[in-house]
């Protein structure tokens, strides 16, 4: 089996995958490394999977408040797991487009 390299996938200027179908777990690990996350723990995966599943089901990435209410990981921990912007970073690692900014 060949390894997928980050250079094999199509990404936008901010590092988000343009096509969620190009995503796999190896890609997730490499994007995490790029963002300074050494290891994707089960807690990371819980958030990334929730994020990705919600996007694929509804076409919208959940906001940070929704993540805090529905992903099973409280917001404070989200910031520890995904420093700076948890919703954006989890979306990037999960291979879905950049969440729309709020209005």
């Amino acid at each position, binding site marked *: 089996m060949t390894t997928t390299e980050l250079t094999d996938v199509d990404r936008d200027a901010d590092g988000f995958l343009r096509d969620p179908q190009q995503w796999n777990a190896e890609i997730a690990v490499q994007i995490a490394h790029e963002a300074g996350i050494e290891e994707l723990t089960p807690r990371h995966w819980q958030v990334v999977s929730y994020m990705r599943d919600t996007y694929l089901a509804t076409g919208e990435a959940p*906001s940070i408040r929704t993540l805090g209410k529905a992903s099973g990981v409280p917001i404070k921990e989200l910031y520890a797991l995904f420093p700076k912007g948890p919703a954006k970073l989890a979306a990037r690692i999960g291979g879905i487009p950049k969440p729309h900014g709020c209005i």
Partner: protein
Amino acid sequence: MVKRIVILGGGTGGTLMANRLRKTYGQSEVEIAVVDRDDRHVYQPGLLFVPFGLADVDEIIRPRRRQLANGIAFHETEIDHVSLADDLVHLADGTVLPYDVLIVASGARLAPEETEGLTGPGWNERVFTFYTPEGAAALAEAFTWFEGGRLVVNIVDMPIKCPVAPIEFAFLADWHLRERGIRDRTEIVLATPLDGCFTKPIASRHLTHLLEEKRIGLEVDFATGEVEGDRGRLISYDGREIAFDLLVTVPVHSGAEYVGRSPGLGDDLGFVPTSPHTLQSLARPNVFALGDATNLPTSKAGSVTHFEGELLAQNIHRFLAGEPLAESYDGHANCFIETGFGKALLIDFNYETEPLPGRFPTALGPMPLLRESRLNHLGKLMFQWMYWHMLLPGRDLPGISPEMRMQGKKPVETHA
């Protein structure tokens, strides 16, 4: 057979929808019922002026009932839940209202309890919100004893009603404290979770420039996690701290509580997923939504509700006639931004077009866009009269169309 329209919420959207529909249909064709938990209709733009003694709470509240035309039933009670499957609204007083068309216009509610410590020690003592009549009045009181120090204006999280209001508050505070001669003893800081002071780039640049001119500090990317009222500390999820002597907070917003008790109606935050151009809900074809209650990517503002209402009334007419809905709403919003010293900016935008400089409503003006002027301030003041006497009764405002017009606007290079 008589059709039944039930409208949830007797604020801006619910009232103007009820009145517009009442004009369109005779009583033998359509019955209209409005439900709200209380009989206090607040002119919300007026709340901004209360803390500075420029408006009184009594002046901006009127009975909801009296804004509704004859032939509209008003139920003053909480809503228990909506049962989408059998087209029924269950009220807390036990009444059950069957509907052919349901209009959700129940707005957004403040949820300060969702932020750790926010309603703890110091709440309404040195921590205030001007987003409620009670909070705005308490803040007016606090300003009478405030003798300087650090005034922090904080947006906890988006979305919020009127995203420019916190900036306007900072501008008016600068003016007010100058008049009182204590501005040089006061530091004003605006702390926001956004990466700039406003959501739209060109307007954000103009407003940032004004903040600098008025020496108002700006803390961006600040995701408020906790408030320590007794220590006077605002703490972000990533551990940053901002000290305050007086905190003016804009708490997180959610949809009305009954939305959460109505399976299939709302999203996780209690807002109603709505089709952006027809205003039909995604939940059911006979359920529509407007104003702050929707999840739409436009501002939660009265102007949005007003433009939506004009178009939604037509779509409800089409729906009841069995015709296809029009994809007519374009996200149009129009907001005055008070900048203090008797001046204001005006912005006009929609889903696609961000606020641009130029003139409004046409190239001849009279009102300048994205530029401070006295006329814009007078426009804002005059609007209160128009709100009660034209907008709520469901009259069209002369020269103002529900669709955004490019006439008078000057496109700008976005990277300029």
